[in-house]
């Protein structure tokens, strides 16, 4: 959760201008996060924005500009290279007596595609380049701060422009932030925050995957040669050079040309056969634009009631309204398509009222604070979509001019979500040496049904600053030593509205004479069944920590060890489908997380001109399911029915599938195994060159009982190191970061387009008994059990990376004073300069994960397919203060 100036801002980090940030604080342990209750269960990031100080006006100007490009692309063969490989394989099989020579051939379609690419186009089309580009981004900001003793202000205005790495992807934002601190009287202070912004967003109509999987023989637009070929089909007589080409234009035509082996081939064939539209056409003919209007505003009133007793009231509103139009021109997707405009209006109105009484008292060596507060939050969510069809022209894009409305693609939903909280906190410190605090929070959420709305979350913490003890006063090298410990509970209510009550949804039906009339109907929801008893998920976390600073704070170490138990997990539990639904909302089971974090920072060298400092962190987390009610395990399926298991005593998610032992090298290899009694009920298990399943349970039958755990998506440990080296005004910093031991399921090899044409999946593949390749890469995928999850697609997600390098120069203070400035800095920075991926990882981004559809469930994790490249960015900037 992100809190900006006391206000919860769900998309806070993306939303705030870095130049406006004064400080950032991260709350990790339960006791310090407890005050934020339900929303703080996975940690809290507190952002404080800049405010004015009583002085004459100060100006700050920042500008940066940079570019980003993909770190790595798919290594895709051109189609001619692919067909050449097929001919090579055919030749290798030609002398093999075990190969049926009648079927040892290259298909007519592949030959036709070869002719188009090799003889009509001359070279393959690089479809990745049709989607990717170098994106330019820039950031401009001007800030002014100042004020008098009673009135202080900070005002900034900014522009952010960000081109994505894909064509037609762009984000632009204009924003203003104004913060005023008013001292109305000695007792009354008011802080006002206003942050309006306007942003535009443009998105491409097709994702990257639909580009790279286009075969290289398909031209983006017809050339004279390909148009002439397409016109040989009388139904395509109108195609001319310059028109967008589709795979279907090359179906059922007569081809003649030279093959890679020098022979001449003539035949009737369909080069592609895929119905997939030319993605470039879809992107070019569709415009997806969203305008986003936001206003974040708050007023905070501070009243000093009695000495030490303060009343604070914060009222804030966060309005986020977006209005979009997704317009597809005629024939943008399929031939005969009407033009379609999808108009969206979405608004989120988030209101918060927070009222606290805070009492602070110091009696000699005893510091006491007490806090009591009441907060109310309300979020109104409105989503509306209206779809218009058949506009008189592709240039007229107003809903009123649509010839008809499409009800199937129109909807409107509303929801109001409320949260009420009471909180209290007491802290006590003796000589700033012994620290205690205790807090209690009660949250009531509208996500839960009557009787289950309220959750209670207590927390206690204690600290001992050992270095302040008298007996430590003689130890000079120890500047600070502190032990701390805490125990606290937090809650989680992150589910959908109305998960506690089964609802009926509209399902109209035509009835009556002639073509019938639409009559209203209602049906139940077939995806998930409500749970009237659903309530808070709770996390109880114990933390122990230690802070040490040595040699006048030259070296400081922070060590944290934690153990947490989350129970009543909010899960979408899979249920038997014959109940009429797939899942059930449930508070089920409990999960344990244990781990540690170490942070070390060291000022290695501090000379007059030369400085070098290092900070490093290392963390490790292990999770384990403690119980799942009466269940021993749960199983969940992803998009290809690959299985994710949640088993008691094991990590939350494990991949379950077949272990393989390379490929079947030959039919003889299979016959030998069968002769020993090996059988199977699974389809297509015994294919020469296909994956060879290991009979895990040793019963000589290859079946679903042989599935075993193939890994889990969780990293064993993650780390980061930052080094800062400075000389005079120059400063160089570089940040390395890594994650090790996690696994992922790579869906790409299971898909024909990728498995066939990407070199990482097809090189060294099995060809025949005499040419078994590396004995591990199967010849063909996409039949029978090859669709099931095997260890062939489970890969190592470990990586380390040079995340950021930054070189800056602060102009000499004396020099800039002469030209009337108070400070100036120029810098260059680069991100993802180097990215080291595990040797068995075959795609582009080991951090990429599917998050939608079945993958939104916490019980499924670690799947990627068609991952988007990692961006590598270079940036230059300047900061001036005057």
């Amino acid at each position, binding site marked *: 959760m992100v809190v900006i100036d006391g206000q919860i801002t769900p998309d806070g980090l993306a939303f705030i201008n870095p130049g406006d940030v004064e400080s950032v604080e991260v709350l990790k342990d339960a006791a310090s996060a407890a005050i934020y209750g339900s929303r703080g269960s996975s940690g809290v990031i507190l952002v404080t924005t800049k405010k004015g100080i009583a002085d004459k006006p100060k100006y700050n100007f920042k500008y940066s500009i940079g570019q980003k490009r993909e770190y790595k692309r798919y290594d895709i063969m051109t189609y001619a290279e692919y067909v050449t490989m097929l001919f090579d394989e055919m030749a290798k099989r030609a002398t093999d007596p075990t190969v049926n020579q009648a079927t040892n051939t290259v*298909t007519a*379609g592949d030959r036709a595609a070869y002719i188009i690419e090799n003889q009509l186009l001359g070279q393959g089309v690089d479809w990745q380049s049709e989607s990717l580009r170098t994106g330019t981004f820039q950031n401009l900001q001007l800030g002014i701060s100042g004020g008098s003793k009673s009135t202080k202000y900070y005002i900034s205005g900014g522009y952010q422009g960000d081109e994505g790495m894909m064509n037609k992807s762009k984000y632009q934002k204009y924003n203003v932030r104004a913060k005023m601190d008013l001292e109305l009287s000695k007792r009354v202070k008011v802080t006002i925050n206003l942050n309006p912004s306007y942003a535009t967003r443009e998105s491409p109509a097709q994702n990257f995957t639909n580009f790279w999987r286009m075969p290289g023989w398909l031209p983006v637009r017809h050339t004279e040669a390909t148009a002439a070929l397409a016109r040989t089909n009388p*139904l395509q007589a109108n195609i001319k050079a310059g028109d967008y080409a589709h795979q*279907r234009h090359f179906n*059922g035509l007569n081809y003649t040309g030279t093959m890679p082996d020098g022979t001449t081939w003539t035949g009737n064939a*369909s080069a592609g*056969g895929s*119905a997939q539209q030319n993605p470039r056409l879809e992107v070019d003919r569709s415009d997806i634009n969203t305008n986003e209007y936001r206003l974040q505003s708050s007023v905070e009133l501070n009243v000093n*009631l009695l000495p030490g007793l303060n009343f604070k009231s914060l009222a804030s509103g966060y309005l986020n309204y977006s209005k979009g139009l997704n317009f597809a021109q005629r024939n943008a997707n*399929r031939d*005969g398509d*009407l033009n379609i405009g999808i108009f969206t209006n979405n608004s989120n109105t988030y209101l918060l009222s927070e*009222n606290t009484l805070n009492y602070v008292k110091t009696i000699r060596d005893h510091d006491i604070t007490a806090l009591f507060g*009441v907060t*109310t939050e309300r979020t109104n969510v409105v989503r509306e979509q209206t779809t218009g069809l058949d506009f008189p022209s592709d240039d007229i894009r107003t809903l009123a001019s649509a010839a008809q409305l499409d*009800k*199937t693609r129109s909807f*409107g939903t509303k*929801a*109001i979500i*409320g949260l009420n909280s009471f909180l209290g906190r007491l802290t006590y410190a003796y000589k700033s040496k012994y620290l205690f605090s205790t807090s209690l929070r009660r949250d009531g959420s*509208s996500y839960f049904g009557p009787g289950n709305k309220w959750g209670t979350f207590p927390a206690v913490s204690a600290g001992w600053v050992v270095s302040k003890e008298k007996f430590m006063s003689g130890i000079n090298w120890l500047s600070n030593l502190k032990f701390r410990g805490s125990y606290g509970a937090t809650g989680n209510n992150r589910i959908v*509205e109305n998960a506690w*009550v089964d*609802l*009926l949804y509209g399902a*109209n*039906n035509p*009835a*009556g*004479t*002639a073509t019938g009339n639409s*009559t209203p*109907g209602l*049906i139940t929801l*077939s995806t998930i069944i*409500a749970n009237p008893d659903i309530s808070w998920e709770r996390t109880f976390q114990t933390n122990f920590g230690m802070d040490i600073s040595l040699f006048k704070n030259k070296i400081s170490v922070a060590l944290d060890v934690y153990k947490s138990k989350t129970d009543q997990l909010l899960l979408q*539990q*899979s*249920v*038997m*489908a*014959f*109940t*009429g639904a*797939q899942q059930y909302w449930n508070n089920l089971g409990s999960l344990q997380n244990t781990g540690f974090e170490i942070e070390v920072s060291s000022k290695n060298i501090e000379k007059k001109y030369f400085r070098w400092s290092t900070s490093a962190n290392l963390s490790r987390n292990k999770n384990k399911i403690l119980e799942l009610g*009466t269940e*021993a*395990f749960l199983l969940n*399926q992803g998009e*290809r*029915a690959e*299985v994710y298991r949640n088993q008691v005593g094991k990590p939350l998610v494990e991949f379950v599938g077949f272990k393989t032992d390379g490929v079947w090298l030959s039919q003889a290899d299979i016959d030998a195994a069968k002769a020993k009694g090996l059988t199977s009920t699974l*389809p297509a298990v015994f294919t*020469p060159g296909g994956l060879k399943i290991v009979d895990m349970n040793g019963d000589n039958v290859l079946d*679903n009982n042989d599935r075993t755990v193939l890994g889990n998506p969780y990293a064993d440990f993650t780390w980061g190191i930052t080094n800062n080296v400075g000389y005079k005004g120059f400063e160089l910093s570089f940040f390395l970061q890594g994650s090790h031991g996690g696994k992922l399921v790579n869906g790409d090899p299971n*898909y024909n387009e990728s498995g066939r044409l990407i070199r990482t999946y097809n090189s060294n593949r099995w060809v025949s008994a005499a040419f078994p390749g590396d004995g591990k890469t199967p010849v063909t995928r*996409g039949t*029978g*059990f090859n669709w099931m999850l095997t260890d062939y697609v489970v890969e190592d997600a470990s990586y380390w990376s040079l995340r950021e390098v930054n070189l800056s120069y602060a102009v000499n203070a004396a020099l800039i004073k002469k030209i009337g400035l108070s400070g100036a800095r120029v810098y260059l920075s680069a991100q993802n300069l180097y990215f080291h991926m595990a040797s068995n990882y075959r795609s582009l981004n080991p951090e990429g994960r599917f998050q939608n559809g079945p993958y939104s469930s916490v019980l499924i994790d670690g799947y990627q397919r068609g991952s988007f490249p990692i961006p590598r960015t270079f940036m230059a900037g300047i900061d001036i203060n005057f």
Partner: protein
Amino acid sequence: MKTLIKLLFAGTLFITSCKKNIDRYPLNNVAIENYYKNAAEVQIALNGCYAALRTTLLEEWQMTELRSDNSIMGNPGSTSVPNREKSDLDVFVPSTSLASVYTYWSANYANIRNINTLLNALSLNYDEAGGTLKRDSTSVIITDNEYKELSAQATFLRAYHYFNLVRLYGGVFLIHEPYTGANVLQAVNVNRSSVADIYKLIIADLQYAAANGVSLNYTLFAASNSGANLGKANAWSAKALLAKVYLTLNRKSDAIPVLNDIITNSGYGLITAGLTPYADVFSVSNEMNREILFAVRYKAGGIGLGSPWPNTFAPELSGTAVVNGDGDGFNIGTFELENTYSPADARKAFTLGVWPTPTTAVTSNSRRLYVKKHITPVTLLDDAENDWPVIRYSDVILMLAEAQGYSLASLGLINQTRARAGLGAAPLTLTNVPNDQRFADSLAKERRLEFAFENVRWFDLLRYKTTLPAITEDAVTRMKSHFATMFTNHYAKYPSPAPTLATIQGYITNDKLLLPIPQREIDNNSHLVIPQNPGY
């Protein structure tokens, strides 16, 4: 201090108002527990049960027509996942995790839940031991007539779903009460029921629907309720389905009186008038005509009720030539079926279209036989008008012929549909159909031609072994012949390594006539072992 008191006072007001803040109720939907209060609400919920038939129909052609000898997967060389899965179904090697096998299963059970929820509100309960429905007192405000009319339709729909499930998957799970709340977790204690127990429920439901449904004859039914009843299941729909259940169970003597009752009293009949009587049965300007005992209804016009079939079945990459918005090229007809039609048969040209042109050479690589029967013009993608017939009157008379067996009367019944198809000049006689075997083959052929692509053929093939024991080819033999006929043209084009004919013929066994129970259903239960169908 005054300020403090004021603030505390304001605070108290605030706290009392804040209870309302978290007592939120759905703004877009109605809760099940607050619904089904009166007949009007039950009617609306029942409309929803009809609407859900469109969802189950989505996958049905893959479970039935695709696995029969009428249809093949249109794109044999394709290696895309959805196409491979269709090929796997086509040649009887579906993985137990195959997506559509699960989707069809869960869509049927989703609507069974809708129906059970409705029947539960009406307190019409099924007694498993007795195999009977029992009407208990209900709090729904409803007249006796309304009760019978609405509950009869709901039981008809439940029987329709279970009848499809039991024929495709065997003994499925017998669920006749809705699952709600924590109750849903008890489902892991339920195992599969026997085929006999499933049929017990189906027969109880259909007998109830036949006895309590509207039994007006077709003309009166079409006029009743200002015509609004058309499309709803009535007593005759239930009787026709019941007869098919009896026939499937080879209870011919039970089927015959039910069928004769329909023929004598229902007012339903064959469309024989006009120049194109067979085409008129399916015409969008003649929906719910006297031949349609029950249909899944669609309606065009961008209101979300349109039929997807024209776009699904039109040839792939045909642009706008066959239907606006191109086709997916699924459910491609076999030339084996094409050749079964005699040239004079009016049903041939109406049922099958040839792409790219009607004259495309049979040997051409790109020749596709697409299901013209279900194609009507569309303005919007997947938004056609034409209904999907479930039971037609011609089925009633041909079922009677099947139940009666070889006789002059039975041949007369077959001749009725043949005559309507323009084959009246060459009637079947005791001379040209001299024995049981010829009768069985002729009837099977006639049913195949009459109901092609109406998801009827596969169920017929499963049944003939018992109802027409003299038939030359049982289902397994028939499919082996089908593989042989279509091998060069289709199955040999499977992606490398292409299977041999012997391999594909080896795939079809008596076990494989049933689909697998979806693997998810077996995996999901850590309490009971759910038996998979043999052969999987």
